[in-house]
């Protein structure tokens, strides 16, 4: 009898927890900040992976089957793996158009939205540049959106989520002032990046993007393009390199331009130092301030 009661209790606890699946680690961090122990979390991609090329492993399908909420970065970044996973999940709750599907790109202003679009332009997203989480000012509205959606799905715990949100925002805004002050020192420096991955950060803090190593988004560097880039670029301080692409091209260009290759994390877990959202931006700042 007592065993049954314990079992029932355990069952009700596991029922009480809202099951959330996030596509990327940074989203998972927001969910952790707001949901804490009242949600169970599964994150699909790893921070070290190229966010465009996540493998739609069947193991993810099993986790999505029972999810109450799926949170995506959106802007077609997940187009290569999320649609088949969603289709195979057999879970009506998290399908787009339902309350259990949250597309965070709807809550931020996307930049670089193309007027005309063709695949001849490479891997261009019709919605705009999808790498918006790297502007730390974009985080608060997204945290709020997640808290509100958690409230809608789990109203008894709403006050708890809102409390956690306020606590998070207080800490975040405090750091934001610091980051704004420190990043401001980088204003005007010229950088080259591999892919258009850091545009939101660069735009926020007035760093100047001279060019990308990729000739077109998603197309690997070519000799011709690199030569043209080198001949045009002047006074470039950093080559911003993500963790997942090859680094030889960046090193070659850095050598030729007398610039420095900086490997910048794009997500939580991309480098060991980026343990959460706070340390992600701390680490980006640290690496750029060297």
């Amino acid at each position, binding site marked *: 009898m007592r065993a049954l009661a314990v079992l029932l209790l355990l069952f009700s606890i596991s029922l009480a927890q809202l099951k959330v699946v996030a596509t990327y680690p940074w989203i998972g961090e927001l969910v952790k900040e707001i949901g804490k122990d009242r949600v169970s979390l599964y994150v699909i991609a790893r921070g070290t992976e190229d966010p465009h090329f996540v493998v739609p492993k069947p193991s993810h*399908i099993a986790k999505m089957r029972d999810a109450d909420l799926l949170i995506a970065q959106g802007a077609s970044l997940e187009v290569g793996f999320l649609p088949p996973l969603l*289709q195979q999940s*057999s879970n009506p709750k998290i399908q787009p158009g339902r309350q259990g599907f949250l597309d965070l790109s709807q809550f931020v202003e996307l930049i670089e939205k193309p007027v005309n679009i063709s695949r001849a332009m*490479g891997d261009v997203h019709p919605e705009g540049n999808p790498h918006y989480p790297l502007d730390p000012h974009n985080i608060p509205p997204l945290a709020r959106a997640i808290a509100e959606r958690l409230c809608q799905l789990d109203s008894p715990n709403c006050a708890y989520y809102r409390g956690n949100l306020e606590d998070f925002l207080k800490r975040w805004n405090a750091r934001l002032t610091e980051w704004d002050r420190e990043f401001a020192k980088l204003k005007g420096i010229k950088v080259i990046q591999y892919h258009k991955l850091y545009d939101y950060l660069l735009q926020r803090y007035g760093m100047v993007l001279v060019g990308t190593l990729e000739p077109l988004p998603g197309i*690997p560097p070519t000799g011709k393009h690199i030569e043209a880039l080198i001949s045009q670029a002047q006074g470039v301080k950093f080559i911003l390199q993500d963790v997942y692409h090859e680094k030889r091209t960046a090193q070659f260009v850095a050598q030729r331009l007398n610039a420095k290759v900086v490997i910048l994390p794009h997500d939580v877990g991309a480098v060991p130092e980026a343990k959460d959202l706070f340390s992600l931006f701390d680490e980006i700042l640290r690496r750029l301030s060297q």
Partner: protein
Amino acid sequence: MKKTVLLLSIFSFTFAQDSLEELKRQLEEQKRLIRELEKKIEALEKQKLEAKEEVKEEQKPAPADRTLQLRAKYDERLKAFQIYPFRQTAFLPDISLIVDTSFVARNKNDQEFKGLEIPGLYHKHEGHGHGHGNLNEKRGFNLNYAELYLYAPVDPYFDLYATIPFSEDGSEVEEAYAVTRGLPFGFQFKVGKFRSSFGRLNAQHPHVWDFANPPLVYKVFLGDDGLKEKGIQLNWLAPTPFYLLFGMEVLQGENEQSFGTEGFKVNTKKDGSGTYITVVDTKKPNLYVGFVKTSFDVGNLSVLTGLSFATGHTRINHLEGDDPHAFAGKTKLYGFDLTAKYMIDSYRYISFQGEYLYRDQKGTKYEYDSAGDLETAELKKKQGGFYSQVVWRFAQRWRVGFQYNLINKNDVKENGVKKNLPDNLPAYYAMLEYNPTEFSRIRFQVGQNRAFFQDGSRKTVNEFILQFNFAIGAHGAHPF
């Protein structure tokens, strides 16, 4: 008392007068302030507007005369805008076209190649009613297909998919099916014509295959087109922490290699002068398929494995042609598949994939002897084989792979007497791929097929295929 009231009212009046003056003064002050603020705002807005225009100008040059443009637009709308207000183009489904074309070099000419057979397993026959030929069928240039693919949600309850490959000779509806979007408890229901989920490769479209042709075991047991049938599928994703899927299908069962529904009439004489024996249609639907698939991860290694079973009646009618024969009976197919993919990083992986297929077929064979008299015999076939392949994506755009095919069981008993058929039927293929993007592919494939025979002697087929595959339009990502 009255006096006091009067005094009070007078006093309050004068006081009010005083405060009125004060108010007026304050109001003037306020007004002045507002005017100032307004001026400031105006100035600011002007600045902002200028700034905005500057930004816009940077992005794209403004037309020469904006007012003219605007007026033109306005006039245009007054005239024509309401001609078709019921436009539904927003509901256009995802449309894509996949084109597959190849160059083939082969040591057998097309006539010889067409005449080859795999004893007890496969032979070509005329008129099996296809809109298209087999992949890479002819020497020289082939247009394998231009495949139209459509997808859109029907409503909140169903998704609809259609695959319509066109060839030079016509088109066919390869797939047209609806899948439920909202069944509870992990159930999903599919209805229409679709690729059966039997095995691993069968449900995949040819443009996602790792090699240019279907594996030998697919060719002999399921036909060059695979198991594509009209029917229903119900599958259930189990609520386990790992992937576990159960499914069953009820299908019409018209597959040309192993099943078939239409009965036939056989004359006791080859020249048609005898009496007819009637073989009735099978019950319809005719084919039942069951499968279970499971998957788990070990670090960077993902394993997907499954068991499949199909059972149905068989009607094979090759009574037209030079060598008339027919078969009526029952067939059971068993399949085991295993895929193991090791992710090295975001772009590189090594993948192993293998499938074993086993066929158990029983029934009556109708054939004519040399004198032209009908011979019926009880035929029992127990046949099996596999393919296994390794594909290494060694760079973002490059893949290399090797596939080994073998049919190693070919037991055929006629009236209880074992026929002496070859049971060592291999084929080997190697490929090198260059994928400029996920929308285009160039593949070199070389291979040797030692499964083909002609008049009892083995005919080795060597071939080289240069394959091009392109996809345009809105085409969804592929599952694992």
